[in-house]
């Protein structure tokens, strides 16, 4: 009987310890998520008056000089001195500290990945294209819009010069990303999508930077905006959750195929050279005319449209455009832009 009592007591202790730690964690997480860069008082402060760049832990945390930790106490205490002495577990501590106690050193991982994003990033593609421009080029193939970028050919040969180009920030993906097609309006839906005999590969896609390394290699110091001019690249915006899912109209497009890899990025992404803000672009877009006026795909558009029209005229099963699209897009009504280009 006594043994059972001890067992029960032990169990209760374990459960309550777990519950306490869980409560502490969720409470702490709540505290962490209450911090807003967009509050009226915080908006008045320079980013660099709180965030040090680089932080002392950069070497172990990142491997390159970076903002790799929360600001120190002195950046909070000027305005929030009283909050530091409020209660046994001051709420302000839980913004950074995962364990709120006088000796609690542990902090949440910086930056907090699962928090909603408060900033959008500004990257003027046009300026970067201009500054990296060269006078004239000797090679005939495989170059992209910054200078002499290519996806493959030059980089395969170590002896050849490595030019700075789009691939610095947008290398070919090595892991297949999550992907989907753009959602279409249901009113344009023409036929039930059929099964696709198609498998996307990692090399169909390009990566994009998700840290400071690719910016700091030029902008760490000297070249403005430097590492402490956070607001030059990061602008406050309404909180959002970042999606890692790549959306495409033409999922079948393979960046790495021979006849695509030997082109410039800007041969198709024509608007990239025109803009200082990607948000002004539609889907970082490739206008249809870059394919429809090319010698490679000029006829495909008309062929597909012809097959669709014939299937409708013959009252057969409606043809789903599948040269570029999967059925999730190819089963929809042909947009005016395509009809216009096929003329």
């Amino acid at each position, binding site marked *: 009987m006594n043994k059972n009592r001890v067992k029960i007591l032990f169990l209760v202790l374990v459960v309550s310890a777990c519950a306490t730690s869980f409560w502490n964690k969720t409470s702490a997480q709540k505290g962490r998520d209450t911090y807003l860069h967009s509050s009226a008082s915080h908006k008045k402060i320079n980013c660099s008056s709180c965030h040090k760049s680089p932080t002392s832990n950069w070497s172990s945390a990142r491997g390159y000089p970076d903002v790799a930790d929360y600001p120190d106490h002195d950046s909070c205490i000027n305005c929030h001195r009283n909050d530091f002495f409020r209660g046994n577990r001051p709420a302000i501590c839980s913004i950074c500290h995962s364990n709120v106690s006088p000796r609690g050193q542990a902090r949440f991982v910086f930056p907090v990945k699962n928090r909603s994003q408060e900033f959008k990033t500004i990257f003027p593609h046009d300026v970067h294209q201009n500054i990296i421009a060269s006078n004239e080029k000797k090679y005939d193939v495989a170059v992209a819009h910054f*200078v002499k970028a290519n996806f493959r050919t030059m980089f395969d040969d170590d002896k050849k010069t490595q030019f700075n180009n789009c691939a610095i920030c947008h290398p070919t993906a090595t892991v297949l990303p999550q992907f989907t097609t753009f959602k279409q309006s249901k009113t344009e839906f023409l036929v039930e999508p059929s099964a696709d005999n198609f498998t996307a590969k990692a090399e169909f896609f390009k990566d994009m930077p998700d840290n400071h390394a690719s910016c700091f290699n030029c902008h760490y110091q000297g070249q403005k905006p430097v590492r402490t001019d956070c607001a030059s690249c990061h602008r406050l915006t309404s909180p959002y959750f970042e999606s890692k899912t790549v959306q495409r109209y033409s999922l079948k497009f393979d960046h790495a195929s021979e006849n695509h890899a030997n*082109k410039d990025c800007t041969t198709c992404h024509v608007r990239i050279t025109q803009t200082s803000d990607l948000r002004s672009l539609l889907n970082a877009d490739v206008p249809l005319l870059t394919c429809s006026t090319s010698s490679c795909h000029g006829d495909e558009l008309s062929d597909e449209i012809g097959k669709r029209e014939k299937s409708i005229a013959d009252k057969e099963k409606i043809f789903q455009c599948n040269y570029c699209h999967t059925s999730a897009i190819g089963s929809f009504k042909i947009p005016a832009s395509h009809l216009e280009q096929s003329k």
Partner: protein
Amino acid sequence: MLKFYSKLLPVVLLVFSFIPNIAQEPLPLGSLEVSGRIKINGKAEKLQRKRFYLLRGGLEENKNLIKKLESAEITSRDCFYSQMQASPQFICWLKEENCESPYCREIDKTAIESVPEFQTAFQKGLRQFGKSRSTIAQSWLITNLSPPLSSGFYLRQKSLLESLLSIVKPLQSSMTDSVSVKAIFIDIPLNLPETDGKKKKSETFLVSNLLPLEVGDKSYIWTCETEISNGKLAKLVLQVPEGDKKVKNCEVFVKDLPVCKTENCKK
């Protein structure tokens, strides 16, 4: 009062029924392809990765800009870096791959060993990031280079562009790519008003590189007018005047590049 509103209602409905139709009228949009494949003295040249600007109006409407372009002061790349007291090795490194700035390509170990400015910047990086972080000192070398050498030429060009554009604002700009050597302008909003009951079929635009382009020992500025119509891809092929013969619909300014003393570079 009620009678008045009951009479007015059909009129209001009739007016509103037209609004969607008006809104549905698509805005006339044009597109233009500028080819940068040129011939100079019979030799084919490619104007790759060059920015071109699109302006409303033709040569006549933009005559003030054209005057400014004609008298624009040109500083060649070599002259600029000579003025900045760059070492001959630095200038040769740029010339080797026809780069305008050190951002153009990777600065490798050989370059660090041979170009004094790179060596100094690399040593500075080692002191800053730690001797064990030589990779960062190398790949971030440009952050320890003096600003006139890293971005001075770009800023000079930018300032010239801003002074040229003080009197006019381009509608769009686009760069030629390196493979097809074409600059594509798309979704160009067209003003096609009706005159005498007939709708204008096309609008006149001016295409110019504005900033002089260096090819060989000369600089080139093109200002060419072209017609762009709704829904069609207009094409413009740049040409270089031969002798006294003018290029049709274009003003092309060809000038000798100022000569600056630079050492011969070993290949």
